[in-house]
């Protein structure tokens, strides 16, 4: 293999794949990435055997071929090089990097040893969506998920394709977020319900890699894997087996107390009052019927206490409720409307946070039992 590539192209390509390369004690080749030529394009691939990312970059191909090389060594060379034009050449399982004034030889492993990246069997089963909608939707729900050893089926984002809509949901059992994408925002031939859980790590990579623009991205669903694909990128991942919990039962049908409040102000109040919060992360919100303010309060043992008053429209009975302040903040940050509506049903039932005029999204949070 013999190539001439621009440094910026190579760097950008490496950035897309390098986050998933990690330690694998059994199979050292997984520390490597694969660079090869195919159909007149240069292809970079990396995998951790849970997901694989493939990415095409442009460059001049003088001779076809391929090799796998340790990504950390290669990346640090490329990052520190000053020259824009880089010559790459494979000779006897070594990669030779050459610029005007620099030369390096990296020992590689031949490409036949690299894991074969799986293919999707059913090429009809895909959904086409704009990258910006997908990215924004995923960003708005992902903070409700956290990796946990207890329930593997929660370590992912739930894709619930309902024909007339696509619902995305995530929960860590303390909060839950759901985003509905209606069918005028995507195109698909799929005509039956489809429920699947995509690992959190995969979704994080998708969010990290795809750019927010009007380009389309295709999502292919297979029996036990999913593929995100556009012109120069392919992310294929296993799915999490198991059923996502039937979370409909968590969504309150109605709420007794409702407050409408400026989002920025509440975020600010939560951040400010959190100064005093100790390990328990508790923040208390007091709502009094027929008043025009809510009070955000926190205290830290041996440190002090503080409260913050924010104007709000209040409907329904008075209430004092305690939240984990980070969870509350996550929910507020996921919205982008000026005001938010917070619906409550007493101080030990889940609270709903949503925007007053966007019904496609909500965030539900479980309060802490107040003592």
């Amino acid at each position: 293999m013999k190539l001439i590539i621009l440094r910026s192209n190579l760097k950008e390509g490496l950035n897309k794949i390098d986050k998933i390369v990690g330690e694998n004690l059994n199979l050292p080749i997984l520390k490597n990435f694969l660079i090869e030529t195919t159909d007149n394009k240069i292809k970079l691939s990396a995998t951790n055997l849970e997901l694989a990312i493939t990415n095409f970059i442009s460059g001049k191909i003088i001779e076809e071929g391929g090799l796998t090389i340790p990504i950390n060594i290669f990346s640090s060379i490329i990052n520190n090089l000053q020259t824009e034009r880089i010559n790459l050449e494979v000779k006897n399982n070594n990669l030779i990097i050459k610029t005007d004034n620099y030369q390096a030889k990296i020992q590689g492993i031949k490409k036949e040893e690299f894991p074969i990246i799986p293919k999707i069997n059913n090429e009809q089963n895909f959904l086409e969506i704009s990258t910006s909608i997908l990215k924004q939707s995923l960003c708005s729900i992902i903070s409700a998920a956290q990796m946990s050893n207890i329930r593997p089926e929660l370590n992912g984002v739930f894709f619930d394709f309902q024909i007339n809509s696509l619902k995305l949901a995530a929960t860590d059992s303390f909060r839950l977020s759901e985003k509905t994408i209606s069918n005028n925002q995507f195109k698909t031939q799929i005509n039956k319900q489809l429920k699947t859980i995509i690992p959190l790590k995969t979704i994080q990579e998708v969010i990290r890699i795809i750019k927010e623009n009007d380009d389309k991205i295709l999502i292919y669903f297979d029996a036990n894997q999913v593929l995100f694909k556009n012109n120069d990128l392919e992310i294929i991942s296993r799915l999490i087996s198991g059923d996502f919990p039937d979370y409909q039962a968590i969504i309150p049908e109605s709420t007794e107390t409702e407050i409408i409040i400026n989002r920025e102000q509440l975020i600010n109040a939560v951040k400010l009052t959190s100064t005093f919060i100790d390990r328990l992360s508790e923040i208390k919100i007091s709502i009094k019927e027929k008043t025009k303010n809510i009070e955000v309060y926190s205290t830290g043992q041996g440190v002090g206490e503080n409260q913050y008053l924010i104007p709000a429209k209040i409907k329904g009975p008075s209430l004092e409720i305690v939240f984990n302040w980070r969870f509350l903040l996550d929910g507020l940050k996921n919205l982008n409307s000026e005001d938010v509506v917070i619906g409550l049903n007493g101080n030990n039932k889940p609270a709903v946070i949503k925007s007053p005029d966007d019904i496609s999204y909500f965030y539900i949070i479980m309060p802490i039992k107040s003592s």
Partner: protein
Amino acid sequence: MDLKKLWQTTLSELELQISRPNFLTWLKNSQLIEKNKEGQIIIGLANNFAKEWVENKYHKIILGILRSLDETIKGIKYTVITGPTKEPALKIRNTQHEKINKSHPSFPELKIDPETNLHPRYNFNSFVVGSSNELAYAAASAIIKDVGKKYNPFFIYGGVGLGKTHLIQAIGNEIKQLYKNRIKTKYVPSEKFVNEVIWGIRNKRMDDIKSRYRNIDVLIIDDIQFIGGKERSEEEFFHTFNALYENNKQIIISSDRPPAAIPTLEERLRSRFLGGMIADIGLPDYEMRVAIIKTKLQEQNSALSDDLCGLIANKVRKNVREIEGILNKITFYRENKSDDLTPAIIEEIIDSSIQQSFKNISPNQVIKVVAEFFETTPNELTARSRRKEIVEPRQIAIFLLRDILSLSYPNIGEKMGKRDHSTAIHSYEKISEEINKNRDLNQKVILIKELIYKQ
């Protein structure tokens, strides 16, 4: 040679021929799943990467080894094992999640098993059996032993908060535990069924709903009365019911009243329900209430003296769920205020929780609920008609106005269409007397009261 042994032998030979890292990476958790008559073998691998790799690189070696062990083997197919992921392939470091976990309550609904829709909380250990539910319990036990054959359909009815849902979910949980995956159980509140039918109609995917319900072995439908009057759902349920029934699949149904008393239910469905076993769950007697209180306390790892248990059992007669609420309040009181519970404090807790349930009820609401229950209108109820179908509901309404709201007789007379107070007195006394003799009437009054409390 059985499949497991065959695969073990193959693996140990394979281990000699390929490098250790490769062996560990690709063949860990592999399985020989099946061998069919044509000599085809199916090998299950841990993930798609392993499948691709083994298929492309080791196929010849594996086939060679397998053939040397068993000549009848002709070919191999590879597949990915999809089962519940036992451990995440990538190690998760101790995250924030575990730290939060202890103090922060999580969504209780997430404990529901997504496959069967059953909540693990409901089991027979915590189900107290007494004279008011022993028939239902006996039938349930018989069903578990002999699923689908003995009492089918099993229709169970009773008032709110008396343990219908507990019993039918416990049946489901028990069946699941006993028969594991051999019997597919599904618990569906009828509202959910209706919603699915609506989804099916909207998206023209009724076939999905049909097939989803027809390969269930034990279908448990809760609160069937909600389906009444929703024609398409009733029809769909009727067909599902028949399909399951004909194939000897067990059907368990609950309702707040007997099939004959669900006015909007289609005749053909009603007759189907009547064809099986019908059992009711009534109000628990004193001893049973004490037993329930003790069981609940045990679940919460706390205890109360016999006197105090007796006091609660005496004061709360109508609703088991209410008992649960009161016990929670007592536990809360103990943890946060004082350990020293006197009868006076308990009485106060009970009064405050029961009071709440009637606090917001107006006389008009009572009249409206009674009218709706008997499928008439408040106007007709308060009018002059002396038809039998109206007279009894009217008397019941008067009785309830007195019983629940303690209105004065003249006031009741006024509210019930400007009647004389003596009419109100007569009606109240008549119903008070009748409910002790007439079980049917008693049942009706209890049901209406529950409907009122729900308002």
